[in-house]
């Protein structure tokens, strides 16, 4: 069987707004991906451990708390420390424009702001999974 893209979708940090994350998780399912949805209030440690045990191709985190500049660096560092160098990382949420480049410099592969189309998100995730792990895009 051909490899399916496996994505861990999480809410990072203290933030109870999970509607967006659920919509994304559902859209990825509808695009043929296997999504592990871990829910609210996840620490970087929990997300990385989940990604390890699930052998995720992509980690998707949703942050609407404004704490992205505090939460993303430890997540990126932990991913590196644990050897997840070939795992894609995408961030979604309310991110001010001036922070986008900062996040990308930290090692985030892509950032999706409110208003992003689901198709665009799906296509970009497929491309990241191909670039990082060579998973074929149908």
């Amino acid at each position, binding site marked *: *069987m051909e*490899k*399916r893209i496996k994505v861990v979708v999480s809410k990072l940090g203290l933030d109870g707004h999970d509607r967006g994350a659920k919509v994304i*998780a*559902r859209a*990825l*399912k*509808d*695009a*043929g*991906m*296997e*999504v*592990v*949805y*871990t*829910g609210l*209030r*996840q620490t970087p*440690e*929990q997300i990385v*451990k*989940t990604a*390890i*045990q*699930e*052998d995720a191709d992509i980690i998707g985190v949703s942050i609407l708390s404004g704490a992205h500049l505090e939460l993303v660096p430890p997540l990126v560092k932990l991913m590196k420390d*644990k*050897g*997840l160098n070939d795992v894609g990382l995408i961030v979604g949420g309310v991110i001010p424009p001036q922070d986008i480049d900062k996040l990308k410099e930290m090692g985030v592969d892509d950032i999706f702001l409110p208003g992003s189309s689901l198709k665009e998100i799906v296509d970009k995730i497929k491309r990241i999974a191909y670039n990082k792990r060579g998973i074929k895009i149908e």
Partner: protein
Amino acid sequence: MSEIVKRALEGDELVTSKILTKIEYMTPDGLEYLDELSARAGKAHTIGITGIPGAGKSSLISGLISQYSKRGLKVGVIMIDPSSPISSGSFMGNRIRMQDKTMLKNVFIRSIASRGHLGGVSSEAIMLIEAMDGLGYDKILVETVGAGQTDTEIMSSVHTIIVTSVPGTGDEIQALKAGIMEIGDIYIVNKADLPDANVVYDAIKFSIDSAEWKDWIPKVIKVSALKGLGIEELVNEIETHLEYLRNTGKFEDKVKERRREMIELIIRKWANDKISKVIKENSSLIYEKNELRKTLDALFSKFKNNIC
């Protein structure tokens, strides 16, 4: 032994995870790893948790993880969620019920999509059971897809079967029906703090009491997985069942049965794909002829060419 398997046995979780993926997708090296692990397998106590969607299977597993982890056991968890018949994708949400178990040492949790397989358990899931067994997990908890009345495949895949029921699922007629309500070693009435829990409890009890049993008589336990009530009683009952399996020699039989089931499911999957292919290729023949006998004759000869 291969270097990779050695690293997994030493506890490298990332390597373990990669091995499981390769086994899941049946890559050539994955199958070699499985053989290596299979040679070491046969010791783990495998426990299946089945029941309707929303019965509380994941929450129950969360409770069991706590208990086993406290006792210093290595716990492997395999949770199957359905794949979409439309997109083939999957939304796997079982981990949400066990968030506080993620960081526990010696607990390895893996979600797997059913990938078109019906019956509650898939060949991939059994291959992962076999692998985790070989990796030295003491208890392997397997959560089936949310089950219907005929999803009974778990009975050939694990040692101890827990059927999870909840209040509001019917009277003793439902409990007397064939299928899932006759395969349990232990029945759980979960959400037992809700009204009508006794109705379901009594119905299952009646169903058990009205039958003749050779040796193991199934148990019924009221549990509230969320509130942690009845979990210890459940763990004790699971241990009693394990003792019974060991004393009767059925423990080893179950491992053999699981391996047979694994191979049967792999071959069935292969045959299913062939059947789908033949049907698809000959759809014009199916649409043209409105005569069942002739259509079947024509198709059967094509199947024979394709499968045999």
